[in-house]
């Protein structure tokens, strides 16, 4: 304590106190109707896949989604959600859900690729729905056109730089960096959780490919304007200016008025 009280008159004490103060204060549902998505499944599922998937489903999913995927009080029916929905929800770790909350969170994936494939096969066999997209729909699009579509349809929730953003009552739109093109495509066709569905009649498969190309482009090229500060706009930039900018000004003020030894 004595050391502390001696140091409180140190010229830097005010800055340290200010910084401390600033730091402390700153503190599926998708029933796709048949018109759009009931195309033939691109990845072929064998009868064995369906059978194995059924077993996995009964053991891991049926508690909430009901036997046969017919839904229960705790989870929606999965009839007609399609293989794309399963591949997205299970492939990003959102399902099986850990606990009830405003929305299912991304977490380490619980099933391996083969098991995910089998689960998708089983759910796809329950009713026609969006299929897992082919590789040709995931790359080689027009990034400029994709950027325009992204800013019109996606940027209001996911942020113009795809950094994500807050929604109502604890829900949020996630950041899209590090999300695979396949999962981005599947999210658009199925509308996981509170995301609206962007069916092929709204944004064409080519448009979706353009959007994915745009997202990969901004992810690999970085921001042309220098430090992004999380691309969160005025909040992060303001915090930086308040702490760093004002800090420098205060440091200069203290130096200007101090006596030389």
């Amino acid at each position, binding site marked *: 304590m004595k050391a502390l009280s001696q140091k409180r008159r140190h010229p830097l004490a005010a800055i340290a106190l200010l910084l401390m103060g600033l730091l402390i204060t700153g503190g599926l*549902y*998708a*029933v*796709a*109707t048949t*018109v*759009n*998505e009931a195309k033939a499944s691109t990845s072929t599922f064998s009868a064995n896949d369906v059978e194995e998937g059924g077993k996995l489903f009964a053991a891991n999913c049926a508690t909430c989604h009901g036997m046969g995927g017919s839904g229960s009080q705790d989870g929606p029916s999965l009839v007609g959600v399609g293989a794309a929905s399963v591949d997205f929800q299970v492939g990003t770790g959102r399902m099986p859900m850990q606990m009830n909350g405003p929305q299912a969170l991304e977490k380490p994936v619980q099933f391996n690729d083969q098991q995910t494939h089998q689960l998708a096969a089983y759910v796809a066999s329950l009713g026609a729905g969006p299929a897992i997209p082919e590789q040709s729909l995931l790359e080689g699009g027009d990034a400029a056109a994709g950027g*325009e*579509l992204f800013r*019109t*349809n996606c940027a*209001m*929730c996911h942020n113009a730089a795809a950094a994500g*953003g807050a*929604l*109502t*009552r604890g*829900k949020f*739109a996630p950041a899209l960096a590090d999300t695979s093109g396949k999962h981005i495509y599947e999210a658009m066709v199925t*509308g996981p*959780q*509170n*995301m*609206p*569905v*962007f*069916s092929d*009649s*709204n944004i064409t498969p080519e448009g979706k490919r353009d959007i994915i190309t745009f997202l990969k482009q901004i992810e690999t090229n970085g921001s*042309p304007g*220098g430090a992004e500060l999380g691309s969160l706009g005025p909040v992060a930039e303001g915090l930086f200016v308040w702490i760093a900018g004002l800090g420098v000004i205060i440091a200069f003020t203290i*130096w*200007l008025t101090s*006596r*030389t*030894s």
Partner: protein
Amino acid sequence: MGNHSDGSPNHSGTVATAGQNEVEKFQDPGLPPHRLRLADTDPKAAKRAERQVALLFGISVVGTLIFLVAYFAIDLGPGESTIGNIRLQNMLLGLGTAFAMLGIGTGIVHWAKALMPDHEVSEERHAIRYEEDRQAAVRIVDDIVEETGIKRRPLIRNTLLGAVALAPLPAVAIFGDLGPRPDNKLAHTMWAPTDGRLKRLARDPDGTPIKASDVTIGSAFHVIPEGLNELVEGKLNEKAKAVVLLMRLDPDSLNPSAGREDWGYNGIVAYSKICTHVGCPVALYEQQTHHLLCPCHQSTFDLTQECKVIFGPASRPLPQLPIAVDDEGYLVATSDFKEPVGPSYWERDMHERSINS
């Protein structure tokens, strides 16, 4: 003069007693004794401070050179203006200027603090107003009145008053040209049928019309009126008023009020995207809770209650666009919005009454 240091229990602690007529308890301590600086006593320290100041000025010179080299040596000519080159030049120009200015500034301050004389000076207050100054000012005004003879020559006085009164009139005429007032432009959008033909709902940005069968449950379409992209003049102004969010939900979850039952089609509804608070685009649609969130101030609208405000500063629901389906299955707007879209403005109530009469 306040006397807060009297610890006498006879005084109420809540009232500070004014110290009039009392001897001041604290004498003016005067200036503290002058303390000599190292550079005042030690020639070595003075020499060191001198070198430090020179070094700071030297940094300024280096900063200026960095600026000049970055400006002339980095080629941004055709084929060379890559983003990397531009960034490098920008950074060097900024750093060069910063060092050039900071070097001079900190050098001068250090010079003044360490080497220039530092004797304390106190300036006494002087009277704010001297009587003789006041008299002199009165005399000047009197002289002006007397010498201009304005009291003796009413013709000059009156013509001057007339000229000064009329001189601002051209300004009134010029400001009049800032108009015309927008009249009821804010109350109408492109959705009004032209020549009896109903406007189709089209996708933003490419402008292709939307069929009712395209809109699946849970979808959200960003919509502009058909023909907007073909506008040559005022396209953005029209778009700013006419943008609409089209959503489809289970028809049972919609609760249309009397007179609005036929404004949607089979669970498909269209609402203005312009927030009624200050006009940000409300387009954050949550397809399960049916909430629409405005990203600017978190106004939240409930789609199942005709976009009633359930949170935030907006005071009115989002205006609904009445829609139907034409013979070819495309969605059309049966009329313009039934109220002015967007935030409040002075004549809004008047315009709303005229729309509905």
